[in-house]
């Protein structure tokens, strides 16, 4: 991957973090896939001399990394912002135990919600858990800062939070490379006063945390990562993370205090800097995190009264917020048909959700994955989606609230990976507390949305080597589910029948909708039929249009055009399959009652 010189690469933030972790001597790394964090482990797993894994969820990932740290080696846990909510339980108490080997937890936040259900600002976790947090501004810094984060972790006996955002993770830039440091020897050491958080030892550690934060505050004053870039003092800035880049472009002449460690803050440095400038503006994405704490020091500054607290920033937004008269005119956007993402042509989820879309009276409690896209028209077959694993608990809660009225009308839908992440406990609860919702597990044999990572049910590990696979049927039965039915979602008719029957039963039952994701290499390679529209048979009934396959399109006709094509003048249009896009699932063919869709054997 050489760019010009071999010691410089052009890497994404996530690739740079993988490199940095390897160089920093990380020996164990665990995570759960989640945009924009996924590629860190995907890259790190190809380095020699570091153990990597996909954990079933972020809580487990952090616990694994903590265990490795207790054994004296450097460890890394990676997750997206909402994943840290799941991992927050071990996080808050790991703050008490501290570490043996360095421990860094990466949280990849997603301002603007490019691929997330919320845009929470995880800097708040650093404050709440009393942990130091680093935040780089670009890939090169991400690599360098990670080394510092591990040093700080070991020197101050603390887990370190490392926050990136989408515009670090998925930005590519020039990155320097270095050598790997010498590795620590793993060992077992029993230190109950440090590792066993019973109330007694925990109280002792609680005091140690206060001392640690004081020490870290001192470190923050001298840390190279918190640097002042001299410049004009009439209007000066405090900023961090990607916002730093926007300030540098919008106000290149201004003095800047750039914070690389965003918690705890260097009080003296901030006060000194503020004292030497006329106007101080804090520029940060999302919450007024720095601003609030700077104001709490008694330092007057401006911030969120100017800078938006919603969504991503860029240099334009920053300039406009501060000097609204100085921005030039832009072309106005033109209203165009939106292009939201869609499930792939031939996606097995589509068949299942088509069946649900025909059951108008049913509330579909949904979950997180590619299949969340089924909430969009034309399927519009998902009525709730909150967080990983929530579908089953929410369905149960609705059932308890609705009682008899809800019988036969509540379905939870959850993907295989999401079920293992945090749906299993919900299912245990539904059985234990005697629910009646139908739980559908969409088993497409992979974690698809984040780019096809293996999971405990897929039969392979992070490197694609064979691994033990959870048997979902047996698992559900062991939980106490009496009826577990497996359907092939491409067979719409049979699937519809099973769903109708199971939903009417009035007891918690499970349907496993099983067919591999069409993007799996084995599926891509498999010879499939191609479906073709026999346009002269198409009556324009739009039955096939309702499944929303991207390979099928509707072509409207005027009465004259209809007649010209040999249709009745009343026919409003016809449907057409783009054969190069068709993945041969056959779902649409089953919906057409006029023999207008037929399979052609692949000539190739």
């Amino acid at each position, binding site marked *: 991957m050489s760019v*010009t010189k071999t010691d410089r690469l052009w890497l994404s933030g996530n690739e740079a973090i993988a490199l940095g972790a390897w160089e920093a001597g990380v020996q164990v790394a665990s995570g759960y896939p989640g*945009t924009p964090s996924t590629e860190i482990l995907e890259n790190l797993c190809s380095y020699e001399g570091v153990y990597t894994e996909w954990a079933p969820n972020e809580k487990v990932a952090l616990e694994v990394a903590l265990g490795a740290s207790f054994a004296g080696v450097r460890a890394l846990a990676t997750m997206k912002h909402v994943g840290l909510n799941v991992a927050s339980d071990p996080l808050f108490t790991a703050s008490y135990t501290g570490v043996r080997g360095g421990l860094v937890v990466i949280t990849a936040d997603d301002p603007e919600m490019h*691929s997330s259900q919320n845009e929470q600002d995880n800097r708040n976790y650093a404050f709440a858990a009393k942990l130091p947090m680093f935040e780089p501004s670009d890939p090169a810094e991400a690599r360098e800062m990670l080394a510092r984060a591990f040093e700080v972790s070991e020197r101050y006996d603390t887990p370190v939070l490392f926050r990136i955002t989408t515009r670090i993770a998925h930005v590519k830039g020039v990155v320097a490379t270095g050598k790997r440091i010498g590795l620590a020897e793993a060992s077992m050491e029993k230190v109950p006063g440090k590792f066993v958080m019973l109330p007694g030892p925990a109280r002792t550690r609680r005091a140690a945390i206060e001392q640690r934060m004081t020490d870290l505050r001192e470190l923050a004053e001298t840390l190279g990562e918190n640097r002042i870039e001299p410049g004009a003092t009439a209007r000066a800035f405090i900023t961090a993370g990607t916002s730093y880049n926007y300030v540098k*472009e919008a106000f290149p002449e201004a003095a800047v205090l750039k914070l690389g460690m965003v918690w705890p803050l260097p009080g003296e440095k901030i006060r000194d800097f503020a004292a030497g400038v006329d106007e101080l503006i804090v520029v940060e994405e999302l919450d007024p995190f720095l601003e609030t704490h700077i104001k709490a020091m008694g330092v007057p500054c401006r911030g969120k009264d100017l800078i938006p607290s919603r969504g991503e920033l860029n240099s334009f937004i920053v300039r406009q917020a501060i000097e609204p008269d100085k921005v030039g005119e832009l072309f106005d956007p033109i209203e165009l*048909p939106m292009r939201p993402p869609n499930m792939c042509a031939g996606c097995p989820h589509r068949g299942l959700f088509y069946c649900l879309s025909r059951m108008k009276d049913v509330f579909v409690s949904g979950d997180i994955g590619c299949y969340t896209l089924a909430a969009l028209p*034309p399927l519009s077959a998902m009525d709730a989606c909150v967080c990983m694993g929530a579908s089953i608990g929410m369905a149960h809660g609705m059932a308890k609230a609705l009682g008899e009225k809800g019988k036969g009308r509540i379905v939870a839908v959850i993907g295989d990976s999401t079920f293992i992440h945090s749906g299993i406990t919900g299912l245990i609860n539904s059985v234990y507390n005697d629910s009646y919702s139908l739980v559908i597990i969409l088993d497409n044999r992979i974690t698809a949305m984040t780019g096809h990572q293996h999971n405990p049910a897929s039969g392979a590990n992070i490197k694609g080597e064979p691994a033990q696979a959870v048997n979902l049927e047996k698992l559900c039965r062991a939980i106490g589910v009496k009826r577990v039915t497996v359907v092939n979602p491409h067979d719409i008719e049979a699937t519809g029948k099973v769903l109708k029957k199971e939903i009417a039963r009035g007891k918690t039952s499970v349907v496993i909708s099983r067919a591999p994701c069409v993007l799996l290499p084995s599926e891509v390679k498999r010879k499939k039929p191609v479906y073709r529209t026999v346009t002269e048979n198409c009556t324009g009934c739009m039955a096939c249009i309702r499944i929303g396959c991207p390979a099928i399109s509707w072509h409207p006709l005027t009465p004259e055009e209809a007649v010209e094509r040999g249709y009745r003048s009343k026919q409003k249009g016809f449907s057409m399959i783009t054969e190069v896009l068709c993945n041969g699932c056959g779902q649409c063919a089953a919906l057409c009652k006029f023999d207008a869709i037929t399979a052609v054997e692949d000539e190739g």
Partner: protein
Amino acid sequence: MKQSGNILFTGVGGQGILLASELTAYAQLAAGYDVKKSEVHGMAQRGGSVVAHLKYGERVYSPLIEPGTADIQVAFEELEAVRYLPYLHRDSAVVVNTQKILPPAVATGRASYPDNILEELRARHIHVVAVDAFAVAREIGEIRTANVVMVGAMSNFLAVSPGIFLDVIDQRMKKGFRKVNRKAFAAGRDLVYASRRHDKKR
């Protein structure tokens, strides 16, 4: 040589925007620029509208192109060529692949695909270069090189010499694909070059 510039890549998830923007970035790096590129993964890739920002210069801070400052847009689909209009300015050049991919609302009969959409750009005096990249790629004999045809066409607007692009193709592509992609690049490059000369004559 121009000191800095901004190139926007737009299209539909799955069209090969990533490869096109990577090639361009590596060519800029080889020409001695600092380069940053920003893209979005995850949900946006499932057939949705996608955009990649590429910025080059002596030292690039922000990975995001400011609205009103994209010098070049490489659009892989016609609607997408217009969707990011606020990023363009009057001297922008838009190299657009003349392909129409129907968005879901259009494909399901709930909306229609606007006619002559590229006129919206021309009406604002934006320099539009329409390229039938698929036709060119088909002629070359490898339909999958359409994105490299687009890079070739776009390269006319950059100071980076075509030789650098060809070197990058050699360095970064698998052996069996180099020849055909070099051809695709050259074909794209000649296409626009010819039409620009034609423009001048008129």
